[in-house]
């Protein structure tokens, strides 16, 4: 009996999501679906829509759960792909030399992102699994990676290390076996996201890296790497420190970027705004689904995606770092 073939997916994923159990991959995507539409400042004007019926319905579902039901996604059981169209703000019309009297119509950058989200613990298990094989395949084929690291996993960091280590070995053995990549590094762009920044204890830990000048605190991108190192150094597990070295050994340094992210952000009182004494945006009641307390304020959710977009599609999105 032949192994049954899965239903075909139209796109190979551009961006694969990747991280340990409960590191917040699906929540990241759910948040992304609202983040772009809320963006202000430099990223204002970006929108996200589903590239097809399936992705549209998934997008709606993720959003509904996050915004209406105010719940987090259930643990992902199986590889799931999302094809989303990210539409940027229109660029100003350009004049060209052959017709300087008229402006070309404005064009909005439009990129289809295919994300692949899978169960987090696949690499933690030594045994063969179909999903694991598929995930590796997708990691190999994708060009951008979003690696999510949950710093709040007390005592689970060694899992994160194992997860990363196994996955990188598998991907490297498939990609670096031939002479295609002479420098011995993987060609991906990788956005390393230190998630759950909204957790009060992570907030406290990040205190000295935090920029308080904004409406909500955030760790600036140039501080994110240092913060990551600090998180790893504080962990009791000796392997924790290796995680960063592992990443920087496997990827080009210029293709790694660190982000300190939060899918739902901190709680901001509608009247009084953010209060460092009361930052938690989660209503955590044992025995019930965790609920989101106030408005969702994604922090550094769209930034990694736009960064990857700019790296992967410099022409469409404009190269900018």
């Amino acid at each position, binding site marked *: 009996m032949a192994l049954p073939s899965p*239903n075909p997916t139209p796109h190979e994923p551009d961006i694969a999501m990747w991280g340990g159990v409960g590191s917040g991959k699906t929540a990241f995507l759910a948040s992304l679906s609202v983040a772009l539409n809320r963006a202000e400042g430099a990223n204002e004007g970006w929108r996200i829509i589903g590239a097809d019926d399936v992705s549209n319905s998934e997008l709606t579902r993720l959003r509904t759960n996050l915004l209406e039901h105010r719940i987090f996604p259930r643990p992902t*059981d199986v590889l799931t792909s999302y094809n989303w169209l990210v539409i940027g703000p229109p660029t100003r019309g350009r004049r060209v030399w052959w017709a300087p009297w008229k402006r070309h119509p404005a064009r909005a950058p439009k990129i289809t992102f295919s994300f692949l989200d899978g169960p987090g613990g696949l690499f933690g298990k030594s045994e063969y699994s179909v999903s694991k094989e598929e995930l590796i395949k997708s990691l190999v084929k994708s060009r951008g990676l979003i690696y999510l690291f949950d710093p709040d996993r007390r005592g689970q960091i060694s899992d994160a290390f194992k997860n990363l280590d196994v996955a990188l070995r598998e991907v490297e053995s498939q990609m670096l076996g031939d002479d295609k990549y002479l420098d011995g590094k993987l060609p991906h762009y990788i956005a390393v996201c230190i998630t759950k920044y909204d957790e009060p204890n992570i907030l406290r830990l990040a205190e000295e890296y935090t920029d308080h000048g904004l409406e909500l605190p955030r760790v600036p991108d140039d501080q994110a790497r240092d913060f990551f190192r600090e998180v790893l150094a504080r962990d009791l597990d000796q392997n924790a420190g290796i995680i960063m070295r592992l990443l920087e050994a496997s990827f080009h340094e210029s293709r790694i970027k660190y982000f300190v992210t939060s899918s739902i952000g901190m709680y901001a009182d509608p009247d009084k705004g953010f209060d460092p004494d009361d930052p938690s945006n989660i209503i955590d009641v044992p025995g019930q689904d965790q609920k989101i307390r106030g408005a969702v304020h994604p922090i550094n959710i769209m930034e990694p995606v736009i960064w990857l977009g700019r790296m992967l599609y410099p022409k469409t999105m404009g190269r900018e770092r």
Partner: protein
Amino acid sequence: MSTVRAQWAIHGKLDRSWEEYAVIDSSHEPLARSDFTRIIDLFKSGTMEAHEQTKVGTSYFTGADGQSWVGLSRQSESDSRDGLGRIFAITEFVCVPWRELPASRVSYRALYDALNKRGGLPGPQPVILEVAGYDAAYLAGKVTDIARAAAALLLTGEHVCVVGADHLDFRERLDFLDAAAALLPYGFRRELAVSTWTSSSTRHRIRLSFAEVAPPDSTFKLQWRPDGSARVHDVPGSERIRSYVMQYEETLRGYQGQAMTNLIGFLAGQIEPRSFEKPEDCRSALSLLREPLPEPQPKPRPQPLPKPLEPAVRDQHTMSAKSPVQLLEDVLDAFRRWDRPRLGQLILRLRELADAGIPDPDRLSCRQLVRTSRLRFQSYRLNLPELQSFVPSLVNLLFTAPVQTGDIMEVILPEDKERRPTLNLRQLVCEELALLPGDQLSPAAKLLVADFSGRKQLQSMLSEMADEKLMEAAYELQSEVPTRIAVDEIIRRLFQEKSNMIDIVGQSNYLLRPIRFIASGEERIRYYRNVINACLGSPPRPEGLETILRQVSEIPEDFRAAAVLEAPPRSSSVLLTAIVMDDVRRQGLEGTPTGIAIDDRLSRMATPATEPTQTDEQTDDQDDDQDDEKPRRLNRVRNTLEGLFGVRFFGILVFVFAIAMTVVLVVRLR
């Protein structure tokens, strides 16, 4: 209702675990946990979302030993939470070897219901699922245009997705999936994965499922409509495939009502494994559908057997057409040649004949014919409609109710008990007989048939049989093995003392005849001893033995021997009386002066033995060991002396005193 042994696994997370989804418990043999992990992984239908209904899906795989398995999973929300406090999905999974499915023609719904009814899945052993029989009429009731379209589209080898049915209860969806599968030859179920819900953003391998939206590209999307209407219009791919699908759908549309039930019954018989990946399997499905359907068989079995014919009718009957024997010969010949068109006609005629009834001599000849027939059938052909209508008719032809063991013994041969991959006609007849209602067969015949149908059948038959029927069977059976089984069962029940078996055995002469039939020499005595021992009960009493011996007419020597061996203490006189009186009866002396004298003498001999104290002492003495002989004698002497002394002591005292007084008087007087 039939039972299947299913391997099982539970997939999910442990309470408060930080680990990834995994198989957390399963049965052990013959499938390993990795097998379960693989099959569950392969047929995942998407992450279970909050407030989603229970998901039921089927799957299939080939084990390491090449055996095919068909699985069914039920996924629901966990009661517990993982390390992050999230509710997760718990999947209960059962799988059954494919080869066990066609025999009972299990439907998905029946398997799901059986799993549901089973409750927990404990221990490393497989679970025994009680699966309801294949209900063609129920399935036919679930057939809609969408189901027809889905069945036809599946034959293209592509996935089919039904959308717009979010509101339906998952059981209704499961019924739909079952109905669609029922419109294909059963053999396709070997490689058919269905699910009551899939997420289209997941790369799943579910061939037929429900979803919110259909996955993009090469999956057929069917829109659910409340009235069930659907039509396949745009089938991509070649014109050939398109027309093929249309034809299949169109042909299905031709069956309505009872015809649809018949068709589903027929398709359920098509159990040769088929694969959606093989175009030829798909193509042949249509030709199967196009074949002239066999006679509608509204559940041919069980039918009451004809009564023996009245002589007048019989005469009238012999006048017409071919003799039953000739007709039967023709049928067997047609089977041999696999001449299907002719076969259909012949079987029809045979059935008419059988329904009308045939004269006894013809019946005997037919039995002879079947007995000598060398025709054998491949097991996969057993479900052929021709055979399915022929065998009941043949049984009708061969037997009249109630069927006796003798009738059956005329048809079957001892070697028919051996099972081979192919079945001969007699074995088919035997199996058919086993399906007849209880009142159509004598108890012994039932046991005989059950014995021929295999030990398991026999056991279940025995356990259901009433005491009286069992006894009837033991006396009637002319075949050693079933008789032995019946006798063994009777003795077993005797010892259980739960039933009124003891009374029944008493009324039936203590199994003398059946035991004589099945055993000889020492073995026979052993049997008798068991019967006596069980009937005596515990503790055995002489009165019990007396009852037994009085009830037995003409006590055989070996039964006497057994009675002696089982005789309780103090029953020698009982034994003697019983044996001598039995002799008196045998020699016709009962009631004669001699007989009366013997009786009288016997009772006088027995009288002192009934005096309580003395008998007790005597028998107790007899029971004592030889070693105690001397002290006992001494005791007896002492007892005697004491007795004497005690009685006479006073007298002696008086006497001595009198003498002394006399002496004193005499001395004084002097």
